[in-house]
């Protein structure tokens, strides 16, 4: 007997549904687990994280110089900052950067934290995609779904980062993905991730919840393990107030984004769009 055990009047019992699923699942070819490839892929992901840390250090160290920034060739340029001449003479070429949005910021027990969303412009062809991929790799935001430049054409990559403490300038990636212009979420659709507030102390309670919902969502309710809830509502302006958790709708994303922080001493239980 399955955990879901009701019977339907069409004669399809829960057991029938479970049987159909099991039968369909048996059609997949299992093969040998590619353990070595998984470990290699895992190490690459870890290396990307380290690359982000290195990029942070480089940005901080080079803060007296200007970062050359420009739009994609042929792009309208509305999603990236205009070019700035580098302070030093040796510049390998234009450097792209994502359009950052601060989703939430605050202070927890005296330590500042922040959640940001980086959105990269969608390249229109493979040449643009190749240029963009180079910039993304430098930035440590190479999306896992992209195996070759053409995978990126017409799609916008995003990375959500969390930072904790004064030294964590750029932040640690907590979520990443690709979107196409036609991507939409509707109704109570919701994707979320719950992580410890300090990414450098794994194993701590998952207090920080970040997710995306339909742009029409008005209210998201985070429920914590101690039974309390936090309701977040749509931001009324683009201003960011410290410790103000809201639903934001960046112009560059097809989704609305929210952040919830659990009170100290409890952790994530569940989250839902409630209005």
């Amino acid at each position, binding site marked *: 007997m*399955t*955990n*879901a055990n009701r019977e*339907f009047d*069409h*004669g*399809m019992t*829960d057991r*029938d*549904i*479970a*049987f*159909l*699923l*099991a*039968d*369909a*699942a*048996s*059609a*997949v*070819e*299992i093969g040998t*687990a*590619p*353990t070595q*490839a*998984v*470990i290699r*892929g*895992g*190490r*690459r*992901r*870890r290396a990307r*994280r380290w690359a982000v840390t290195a990029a942070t250090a480089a940005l901080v160290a080079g803060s007296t110089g200007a970062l050359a920034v420009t739009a994609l060739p042929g792009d309208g340029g509305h999603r990236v900052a205009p070019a700035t001449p580098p302070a030093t003479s040796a510049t390998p070429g234009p450097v792209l950067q994502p359009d950052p949005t601060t989703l939430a910021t605050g202070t927890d027990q005296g330590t500042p934290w922040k959640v940001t969303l980086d959105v990269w412009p969608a390249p229109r062809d493979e040449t643009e995609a190749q240029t963009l991929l180079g910039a993304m790799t430098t930035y440590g935001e190479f999306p*896992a*779904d992209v195996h070759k430049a053409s995978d990126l054409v017409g799609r916008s990559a995003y990375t959500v980062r969390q930072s904790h403490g004064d030294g964590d300038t750029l932040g640690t990636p907590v*979520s990443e*993905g*690709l979107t*196409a212009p*036609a*991507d939409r979420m509707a109704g*109570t*659709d*919701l*994707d*979320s*991730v*719950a992580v410890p507030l300090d990414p450098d102390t*794994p*194993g701590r309670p998952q207090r920080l919840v970040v*997710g995306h919902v339909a742009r029409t969502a008005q209210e998201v309710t985070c*429920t914590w393990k101690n039974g309390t809830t936090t309701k977040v509502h749509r931001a009324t302006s683009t201003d960011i107030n410290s410790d103000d958790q809201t639903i934001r709708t960046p112009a560059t994303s097809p989704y609305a984004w929210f952040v919830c922080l659990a009170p100290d001493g409890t952790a994530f239980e*569940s*989250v*839902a769009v409630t209005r």
Partner: protein
Amino acid sequence: MGDRKQAGDEEFRAFVAGRWPRLMRTAFLLTGEQHAAEDLVQSTLEKAYVAWRRVGSADDPEAYVRRVMINTHARRHRRKLREFLAPRDDSGIAREVPDSGDHISRAEDRGLLLQALAQLPPRQRQAVVLRYWEDLTETQAAEAMGCSVGAVKSNTAKGIAKLRAIPELADTVMYGGRK
């Protein structure tokens, strides 16, 4: 330090080898396609590897991996599955009921279910797969999906209702030797 890392890798290898078949089957139901399933499981396990020191020592590493898989699936396969399994335009053509036990008819039945799953919104598909294939409780499914128990109930009920409304699926059960 090196020894600890090596031990962690060995533990991870054992985890992957042991869980691969089950994860593949779940991923197949979520994605509806062999290569997409392999891709989903591999990405999921790569993410688990990055956090393995924490995941491996957790009470329930499988629950963590399941949650990563559901999150990854939600992001990556929302549109792909519909494109891949878009039903052919065979409306109006009466479906013949082949002899039960026929390999071709079994394959057609499986294809029918996968197509039906493909028509469900991702959250409903996830809820149905987690509840009826993974046999998770509503609470466990809610943890995996990062939503409330109520949302799991609602998504499961809607998903099952849609499957149930497909007469061919009921025929599969009726004529496929189950009744």
